[in-house]
């Protein structure tokens, strides 16, 4: 029972922080800034992009989902609140037409959109290596939000392929939390970095005139520089982040 009370406390604290953020953004009109008519029209298109690209990836049989490109796109050019709404509604619509099992994951999708928006606001969506960092941060947030849902709603092991990794880790004697957290951390970064890079490629291809019609089009102004040097920096950053994950994560989870 102690575990349940402790979890309930975490849940209430998280909820309180969210409510405060919500009220703050509403009172200071930061939230309203995200939602112009262009944003409201872009959101359905972005959701359709999410679900349709998921389908193309299935045709190509790639080991990623890429089902949040539209969410990241809206987060970057319209702002974090619009991104969060796109993510949440994307999962709700997928639940309506594909499989109701998508519903419980909507906080993860919302967190992905919000993180993309915040990272773009601080200028981390302007060239290749920064986008890679953003992708990694998105993966980290998705892991943190997704792990409790995975454990509380689905008991930690679901019918997905990555559950085999969780099962393996559990057999090696790790706790359920450590096993699920590690699995998500292994599975997420590749997908989210690829998602961010594709969203960046899309933004790069849009004209400045078109982008300027969105509330935060300036977030996506691409910095011109030496492409080759940027690619090298991007690779170094990825390697560093993976090393960080391998060495730091086990000590946090105590696994």
């Amino acid at each position, binding site marked *: *029972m102690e575990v*349940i009370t402790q979890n309930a406390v975490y849940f209430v604290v998280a909820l309180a922080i969210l409510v405060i953020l919500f009220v703050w953004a509403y009172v200071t009109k930061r939230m309203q800034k995200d*939602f112009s*008519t*262009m944003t*409201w*029209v*872009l*959101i*359905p*298109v972005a*959701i*359709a*992009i999410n*679900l*349709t*690209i*998921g*389908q*193309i*990836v*299935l*045709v*190509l*049989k*790639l080991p990623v989902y890429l089902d949040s*490109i539209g969410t990241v796109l809206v987060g970057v050019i319209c702002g974090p609140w619009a991104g969060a709404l796109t993510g949440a*509604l994307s999962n*709700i*619509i997928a*639940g*309506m*037409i*594909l*499989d*109701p*099992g998508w*519903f*419980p994951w909507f906080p993860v999708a919302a967190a992905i959109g919000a993180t993309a928006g915040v990272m773009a606001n601080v200028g981390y969506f302007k060239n290749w290596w920064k986008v890679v960092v953003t992708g990694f941060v998105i993966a980290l947030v998705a892991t943190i939000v997704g792990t409790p849902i995975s454990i509380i*709603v*689905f*008991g*930690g*092991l*679901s*019918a997905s392929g990555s*559950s085999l990794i969780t*099962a393996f880790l*559990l*057999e090696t*004697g790790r*706790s*359920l939390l450590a096993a699920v957290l590690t699995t998500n951390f292994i599975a997420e970064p590749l997908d989210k970095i690829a998602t961010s890079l*594709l969203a960046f*490629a*899309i933004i790069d*291809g*849009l004209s400045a005139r*078109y982008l300027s*019609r969105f509330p935060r089009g300036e977030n996506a102004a691409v910095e011109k520089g030496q492409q080759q040097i940027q690619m090298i920096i991007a690779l170094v950053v990825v390697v560093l982040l993976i090393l960080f994950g391998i060495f730091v994560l086990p000590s946090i989870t105590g696994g």
Partner: protein
Amino acid sequence: MNLDRSFFVPARSFLHSLNPLTKLTLVFAMIALAFFSFPWMAPVLILPVFVMGFIGKVQKQYSNVIAKLILPTVGFMFVMQSLFLPDGKTIIFTFIIFDVSLETVRTAFLTVSRIFVMISSFTLLLLTTHPSELMSDLTRRGLPGQFAYVIISTLQILPQMQAKAQTIIAAQRSRGLDTQSSFGKRIGALVPLVGPLVFGSLVEVEERAIAIEARGFTSTRVKTSLHEIPDSGLDKILRWGLILLIIASIVSRVLVT
């Protein structure tokens, strides 16, 4: 993956005649009972869910969804969890090297029945309520009209975009794009497939924004609706009853433990 499938089945039944909000409250009540109430509640709820399928006259489609979507997921989860979850003392049997214990089977059964109840109640809501009916009822009760626009227009755009994606895949293949061989080639194929699809649909955004702006999209006046959705006294009583049920399920659990 077929995107233009909506779950809704038109029929005349008690569930169909209920107000959409009442059914939504029912779904949340079922989830609250399954997840927050006593552990024996979730398995018990499976029976009422089945009965509701018959009341709504959608038992055929509902059992179809169970067989195709819910049972494979839930069955696989049950096996995985019974085999791999730690903390077992009373071992029932050993499968190769994995111990299956009474405790893990019990936990797995609880999780699986919770998920069954959750997904089933959502499925029943979607089988007996058309998305646009649900959205217009919620809009009438004060949900900003923009939300209804997003949901309904996504449901309209999706089949178009899916068709466009099929056309692009076929067109690029006929130009010789390799979508089946090595891993590197398949990654390379992603950009020529995603690019035309995304840019093509983003171009339309601007025109559509002007079009809906001209039709008073951002107007704050109260909009009238052509389609009236019934909301009877029975609906109101049911809703309040269900809300009390949700509160009671949480309070009783807190008081007992």
